[in-house]
């Protein structure tokens, strides 16, 4: 396999196709085309998959979970101690414990502890609640550096963690897919769950950013 891989990479190294993205786009289309032609996939399979990640699995789910945990202490306790039961209560479409979410775990940010999720070996990510990982999370440089110098990397991302706050790094190397329950920011008193959910980004739910509250209108 590695030889084929190199061969394929060679294909756009050696300048037959001057623009790599154009080449890659044609290659991806050729793969889909051949898989359709051979009857391996249907004509709309890839569209259906993309659609699933737009509507069923995505950070919009994680945002709702976090928002509920912020306003409902019992739910929060359940989320941290028995995540499957907590998620069941959310009424999500089927799949909230599906692919890459069979074993999820929430870790809580507090005034004393900041959590950062990484995957040094690849790009493990809790699909049902957060969707697909952003590019920074998959970057080998992030994976290498965040393991040893999380504070410095977070600082470069614009997030300063005070020295007194313990930084916990979680390396997703087996079955667990982690996500972060961020601290509820100040200035959100009285917000509805829906309003709170709209504040959440994938970065905040991986420990790479704080939750920002827009200035009052």
């Amino acid at each position, binding site marked *: 396999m590695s030889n084929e*891989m190199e061969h394929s990479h060679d294909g756009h190294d050696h300048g037959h196709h001057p623009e790599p993205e154009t080449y890659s786009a*044609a290659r991806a289309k050729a793969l889909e085309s*051949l898989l359709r032609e051979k009857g391996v996939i249907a004509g709309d399979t890839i569209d259906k998959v993309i659609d699933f990640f737009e509507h069923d699995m995505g950070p919009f789910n994680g945002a709702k979970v976090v928002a509920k945990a912020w306003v409902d202490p019992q739910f929060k306790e359940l989320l941290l101690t028995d995540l499957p039961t907590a998620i069941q209560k959310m009424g999500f479409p089927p799949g909230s414990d599906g692919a890459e979410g069979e074993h999820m775990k929430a870790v809580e940010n507090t005034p004393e502890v900041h959590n950062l999720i990484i995957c040094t070996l690849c790009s493990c990510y809790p699909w049902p609640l957060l969707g697909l990982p*952003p590019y*920074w999370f998959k970057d080998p440089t992030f994976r290498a550096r965040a393991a040893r110098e999380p504070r410095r990397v977070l600082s470069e991302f614009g997030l300063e963690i005070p020295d007194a706050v313990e930084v*916990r790094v979680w390396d997703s190397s087996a079955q667990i897919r982690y996500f972060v329950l961020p601290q509820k920011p100040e200035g959100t008193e009285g917000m509805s769950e829906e309003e709170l959910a709209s504040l959440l980004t994938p970065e905040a739910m991986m420990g790479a950013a704080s939750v920002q509250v827009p200035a009052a209108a």
Partner: protein
Amino acid sequence: MKLQHRLGGLENLGPVNFERRVFVQPWEERIFGIHVAMMGLRIWTWAELRMGAEAMNPFDYFKYRYYEKWLGGISGFLVEKGYFTQAELDERTALYLQQSEATLPAGGESTINDTIIEYLRTGDSPQRDIVAEPKFKAGDRVLVKDVPTIDHTRLPGHLRGKTGVVDVVYEGAFTYFVSTGPDGLGAPMPVYCVCFDPKDIWGSLAEDNGRFYADIFETYLEAAPAE
């Protein structure tokens, strides 16, 4: 060693590209969709995708973008497994290079989609219903072995030879997609969340006031010698 197996802590790297997008080119979403279809149809698993990336030249691994690596890995795998030939793939690629708007073939039965969506909804848990008898309990000090990894591993290299404390013993036993040979994965076994003091991993190069947690298969652990 494969550098890809021990990225954690690698020194002297440059800044991280804090790119928040999931896909930066439209074709990336298509290749992701193909990967999910292959997973759902049991054509391949994460293990094959990971092994392909780990078999790359380490400098190419850093050079190529995430989905460029997927594109190369998936192309090579499907040719190797005989789904189509390299010539077919190259010809079809050339066609779309010349006619980017050329239409695609109709494709197989739409019931195929049901299998794939069912996979997404159900997942593929590695947990197995066997009675696990964990060797360690929470609070035990464990030493990470330096196992003879060949093509693939789930043991982050920066933990090899390091000592940590068991934080959680996960309930049940967990298999892996493939056997990793002398590396040790495959048969169902207990998995532990192990907590390390970063100073024990990286000495004075570690930051202060931190904890490093990793999920580690039992085959990678032994009891730490008495202090």
